[in-house]
């Protein structure tokens, strides 16, 4: 039975959306600590302030990340959460799980933790929420030995990469997102577990420009599927859409009567590049003008598909606002091929692929580890040195595709070697021609 009165929280038990309060209370029957979670949270609801202390450096031996330490500032009142450390477990790519795997983790967590979790954390980890310092090594041991899963990242290192569904259950994926996510995670285990970076570094993998894993907004390095050739058109299916046989946008708007499907209004007019038109009852696309925004494909999935020359676009530098303001990632490499490897990595998986991608990642890290300031995200480093310099470092030719528009200020930094005669000038000579 409840250890604390929680009149405020209790009001969150009602309502149609799943109630975390109800859920915690239920778990409290197994894990005493849950009463104290509720107790302290209730106190925060009264005080309108957090009751967790600042930071707390804890971890497992040999790793610099994976655990986020947390201590209560009112431990006497709530001894069950005096320590309340988070364990970040590296999720399976795209978060597919065998139930026995999840059950094993839950078993450990009910024995050694609070029994509460986040499925999942914003970065993508399977987050176990709340345990004591003395439990950490035990948990790590059981995770690695019994469940064969490792910790995720935290601190100034590679954060746990994550990916969208991709080819597993989506028709649009331009490369194997899971394979890429897995290969990169395995290849850079050291960077993930042992902080050697100026600050955190996140990598996310989306199979197409719809970007279902929010890579462009939330990862320092975003790998987003893309294609080079023409959109595949099934003209018969186009007609089926036009005469209403197929639901527009895969039925995603079926809850409201938007009237009969109008290809002109819903597809052609909304194409940002106006590169589509009807020729009789044939849909035409001027693919050279297409920016592959996905809209037409999204609206007519049975008629249109990405081209067959598939790969990925790499964008770098996304981050939240701290400190210089948020950044959406900047397009750096327009197109690379994404070929999975097939080296058996011993743990049952395959690595050794995605050469071009690894090449980009390592160029980026080599420079950033040298030049990045402490707590400076790579996006901030890019802003500090400027895009032209960053492109040189990345050994990428400057392209008009790198910018929305060319510079409007005239302040070009010329280098001495670019200017005939260089910067050295002789005053005497000058004055001979132009006396003061």
């Amino acid at each position: 039975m409840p250890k604390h009165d929680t009149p405020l929280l209790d009001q969150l038990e009602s309502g149609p959306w799943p109630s975390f309060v109800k859920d915690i209370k239920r778990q409290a029957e197994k894990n005493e600590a849950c009463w104290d979670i509720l107790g302290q949270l209730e106190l925060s609801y009264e005080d309108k302030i957090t009751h967790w202390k600042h930071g707390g450096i804890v971890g497992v031996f040999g790793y610099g990340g994976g655990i986020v330490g947390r201590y209560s500032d009112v431990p006497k009142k709530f001894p069950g959460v005096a320590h309340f450390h988070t364990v970040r477990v590296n999720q399976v790519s795209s978060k597919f799980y065998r139930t026995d795997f999840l059950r094993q983790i839950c078993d450990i967590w009910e024995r050694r933790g609070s029994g509460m979790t986040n499925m999942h954390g914003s970065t993508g980890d399977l987050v176990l929420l709340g345990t004591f310092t003395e439990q950490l090594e035990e948990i790590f041991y059981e995770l690695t030995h019994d469940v064969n899963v490792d910790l995720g990242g935290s601190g100034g290192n590679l954060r746990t990469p994550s990916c969208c569904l991709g080819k597993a259950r989506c028709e649009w994926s331009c490369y194997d997102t899971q394979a890429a996510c897995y290969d990169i995670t395995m290849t850079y285990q050291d960077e993930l577990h042992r902080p050697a970076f100026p600050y955190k570094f996140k990598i996310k993998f989306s199979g197409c420009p719809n970007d279902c894993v929010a890579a462009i907004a939330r990862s320092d390095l975003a790998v987003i599927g893309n294609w080079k050739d023409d959109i595949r058109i099934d003209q018969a299916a186009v007609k089926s859409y036009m005469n209403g046989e197929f639901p527009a946008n895969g039925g995603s708007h079926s809850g409201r009567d938007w009237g009969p499907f109008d290809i002109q209004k819903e597809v052609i007019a909304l194409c940002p590049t106006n590169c589509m038109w009807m020729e009789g009852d044939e849909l035409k696309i001027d693919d050279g003008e297409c920016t592959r925004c996905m809209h037409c494909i999204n609206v007519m999935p049975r008629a249109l598909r990405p081209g067959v020359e598939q790969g990925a676009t790499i964008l770098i530098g996304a981050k939240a606002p701290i400190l210089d303001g948020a950044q959406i990632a900047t397009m750096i490499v327009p197109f690379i091929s994404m070929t999975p490897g097939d080296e058996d990595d011993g743990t049952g998986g395959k690595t050794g692929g995605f050469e071009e991608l690894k090449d980009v990642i390592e160029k980026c890290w080599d420079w950033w580890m040298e030049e990045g300031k402490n707590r400076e995200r790579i996006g901030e480093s890019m802003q500090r040195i400027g895009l032209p310099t960053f492109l040189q470092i990345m050994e990428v030719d400057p392209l008009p595709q790198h910018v929305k528009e060319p510079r409007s200020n005239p302040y070009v930094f010329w280098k001495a070697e670019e200017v005939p005669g260089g910067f050295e000038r002789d005053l005497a000579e000058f004055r001979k021609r132009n006396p003061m």
Partner: protein
Amino acid sequence: MGFNPEKPMENRITDIGPPWFEEHFPPVIKENYGKWLYHEILQPGVLKHVSESGGECYTVRVGCARLISTSLIYDYCDIADKHCDGYLRFTTRNNVEFMVDSADKVQPLLDDCNAHDMMPVGGTGAGVTNIVHTQGWVHCHTPATDASGPVKAVMDELFDYFTSMTLPAQVRIALACCLNMCGAVHCSDIAILGVHRKPPLIDHDTITSVCEIPLAVAACPLGAIKPAKGTNSAGEEVKSVSVKEERCMFCGNCYTMCPSMPLADPEGDGIAILVGGKISNARSAPKFSKLVIPFLPNTPPRWTETVAAVKNILEVYAKDAKKYERVGEWAERIGWEKFFEKCNIPFTDKSIDDYRLAYDTWRTTTQFKFTSHIK
């Protein structure tokens, strides 16, 4: 034969990463991997994917509070074992997905979900799906608001939009409990952001011992923090810092670097609402969310003002926007002055950028619409 504290390094296993994903693919996924042809949303929360081999995958998506117990996970597993050969997945927005390989298996699966009081089916298509959010008062040290509470309150109110697909387009709502924005609210259709409004307190009793003064000073993007002598409660003069309060923009970076500089305050903290961000590259490029309501108070347990504000924006959008138009695309088409007018949100100078790159947001044309704002 588990972990041995005496010999911590004894057959220690490290750097094994996550398991190979294929072992976690349901058969229908493994068999049709890369073969998918198209999809269809049969009803809110139920997706059908068809592969070139004729294979079909039916997905039932259920809403999830994200802050969940192992007990609930066991329940998910029970359903997955019963209907889905023992597989399930979580989405990038923290919903749960159960997958079956034939149409007839869908209804029984739905029945069991509906029978459970924590498994609402929905979150697909042109509706409101789960709210990406963060820790708040449940686990973090820097929050300006709670996460799970406001999310529960908002989702209760918007529940019908989770279980239906009646909006002009998908609406992505996110919450972050401080400016660190772990919820990555910076590109959401509607963003709920915890904000501090008071400069850091300086704890002269502890600062010398727990903080590196130079790091604290360096932490401030606006150079508001200077090294200074301070007097602790024992009346002794100590090495500390001083804060130029009028320069502070409440970013909280100083507290992140120095535990003796807390910003949190019951009256100062609350919620800002940002709108019009998007992530997808569909039609328009990704956009940042824009700050339209600078502050709403923290009112646990149900954050009434915040819930009302979000619902109002959502419903004005639902009425006014065109099919496929995301919130930001709508606001840009009608013009931001019309957004404020239609949503009946008072415009304040807090919405005018005065940080870096601010000039690019100033209006440098005679093109504007006359709205009620212009007296």
